[in-house]
């Protein structure tokens, strides 16, 4: 029965052909398909959908991990965020951090990719070494930069070599701690995005450059009027991934400064963690904070799509 060719009109597509050949086997295919995607379906239903619904549910309750009864409080957890000083500080720090890091890491990554997208000798060597910061874990990077930012660490040693003598303790300074973490993350993330830009650059047809080169366009002109417009989809991807990552900055702030000094590096993610584990009865608040953070990230991603997509029409 499986092989019997159904006397239907032959379909044009390969899929159609297979269908008609297999006739009743379509049922087996459907069954196999559903069985094969079952792992993802389970993941989606439990760890995404149910978790998301549960997150909202918890955010509407005064939730305590140890309590038996968690009373419904409506929007109170959300309302309190607007007057919670820690949350406002964390939100400001996180936003500041995200704006600076997303912009600079995207520009730096693009610069690195453009530099690598040429026939220069040793190109692969440069790509490998430039990429190294991206393979190290957040903990390893944090350890390295604890040493870099130490009063007599690598940064001040290098500054000393060029005649600037300072023993500034960057991570203990309310002025420098947040910029120090910004710098470290630009340094680590830019090489990842460099690879994405590089792959996209290599997909740009070379004829486009040939033509512009004959027209006498300068290298800078080519970059701004050909390369960047053509890279728009990938720029959008890099910016959205940047936004998603930056607004959830946790590891480095947790390991290096614990949010200090004087909450100068307190981020929303750090606050969520503290509300979940350090205090009892603030789990609902933690959920509300996470949902607000999620909504902000979502909105900013949409806005960045709009800006990047409609920007230029050459």
């Amino acid at each position: 029965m499986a092989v019997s060719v159904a006397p239907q009109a032959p379909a044009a597509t390969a899929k159609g052909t297979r269908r008609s050949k297999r006739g009743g086997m379509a049922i087996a295919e459907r069954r196999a398909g559903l069985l094969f995607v079952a792992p993802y379906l389970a993941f989606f239903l439990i760890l995404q959908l149910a978790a998301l619904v549960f997150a909202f549910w918890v955010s509407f309750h005064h939730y305590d991990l140890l309590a038996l009864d968690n009373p419904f409080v409506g929007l109170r957890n959300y309302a309190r965020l607007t007057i919670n000083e820690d949350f406002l500080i964390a939100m400001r720090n996180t936003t500041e951090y995200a704006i600076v890091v997303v912009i600079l890491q995207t520009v730096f990554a693009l610069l690195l990719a453009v530099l690598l997208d040429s026939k220069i000798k040793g190109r692969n060597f440069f790509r490998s070494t430039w990429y190294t910061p991206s393979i190290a874990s957040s903990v390893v990077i944090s350890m390295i930069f604890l040493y870099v930012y130490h009063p007599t660490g690598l940064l001040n040693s290098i500054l000393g070599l060029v005649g600037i003598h300072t023993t500034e303790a960057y991570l203990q300074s309310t002025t420098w701690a947040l910029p120090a973490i910004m710098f470290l993350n630009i340094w680590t993330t830019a090489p990842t995005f460099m690879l994405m830009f590089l792959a996209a650059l290599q997909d740009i047809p070379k004829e486009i450059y040939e033509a512009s080169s004959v027209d006498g366009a300068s290298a800078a002109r080519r970059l701004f009027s050909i390369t960047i417009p053509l890279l728009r989809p990938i720029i959008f991807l890099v910016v959205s991934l940047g936004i998603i990552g930056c607004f959830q900055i946790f590891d480095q702030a947790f390991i290096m400064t614990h949010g200090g000094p004087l909450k100068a590096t307190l981020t929303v993610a750090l606050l969520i963690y503290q509300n979940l584990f350090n205090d009892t009865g603030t789990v609902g608040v933690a959920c509300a904070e996470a949902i607000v953070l999620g909504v902000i990230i979502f909105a900013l991603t949409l806005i960045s799509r709009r800006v990047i997509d409609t920007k230029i029409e050459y």
Partner: protein
Amino acid sequence: MAGGLAEVEPEINAPIAVASMTGRRERREGGDSTERVNQLEVIVRYALYIVITLFLFVPFVMTVLSSFKTSAEVIAFPPTFLPSVWHPENYLSVLTQINGFPRMVFNSFFVTLVVVALNLFFDSLVGYAFARLEFPFKKTLFAIMIATMVIPGFVFIVPRYIMLLNAHVVDTYFAFMVLYFVQPAYILLMTQFFKSIPRDLEEAAIVDGMGWFGIFWKIILPLARPALLATGILTFAGMWNNFLDWIIYMQSPNMQNIQLGLATFRGAYQNQWNLIMAGAVLAILPILIVYIAGQRYFVRGIATTGMK
């Protein structure tokens, strides 16, 4: 370290035929003066490349060198470049002085390898269904998968923590298997890969009456080596470097991975710079080896998924 990376390089794909701008101008204009300008351009370019290399790579070099110094020498003023006396025994001290270090290494390897195995199987199985099989709600489910990929992970942390707590898998290895047995980004990667292979082989197998799982297992998977390697390497990197999940879902001291252990050690012994640096080197070593060995796939995977 740099030499090692360079040696692996010839493997890299690189069908990059970007004719250099300088080369073209040379051809068009010729003449000595242009050539001199080009030489200057090349020198400036290389200077820039070297500055960037130093900028991105020197902290690693200094970390490795620091791991052989005494803790006082690491932060000595004025600084030293090479250790005045080499102390390779720092690495032995890491094993003895960081509490439970062997257990951390085991935890890291065990969880990483199990999660990699789960993802190799399930991501490719699901990816195959999305790429090749017709079943109800396929398009909807695929669209959901893409859409939910942008939900920030922190939204899930509290509910998942409570769910795992109630299921009594917090503080056990099962937590990672539950949370990471499939990863949508790599399902997507596998789906895209399967869509790119021709159907001929499957058609023949279908005519032979082979079952769908047989086709997937015996015919499709052996062809999927490059995509499986990308998925495996990127999952390895993600799990090996994971810090956040360990600090949230694991609570007892013997359930730390090497990352969490290193951060905890530093918290307790702020002045043991040489050991902290040696620990950092040990924590990066496995991932560096995986990266060097599978660089080709690593690079491609990142380019397609945007994950690291």
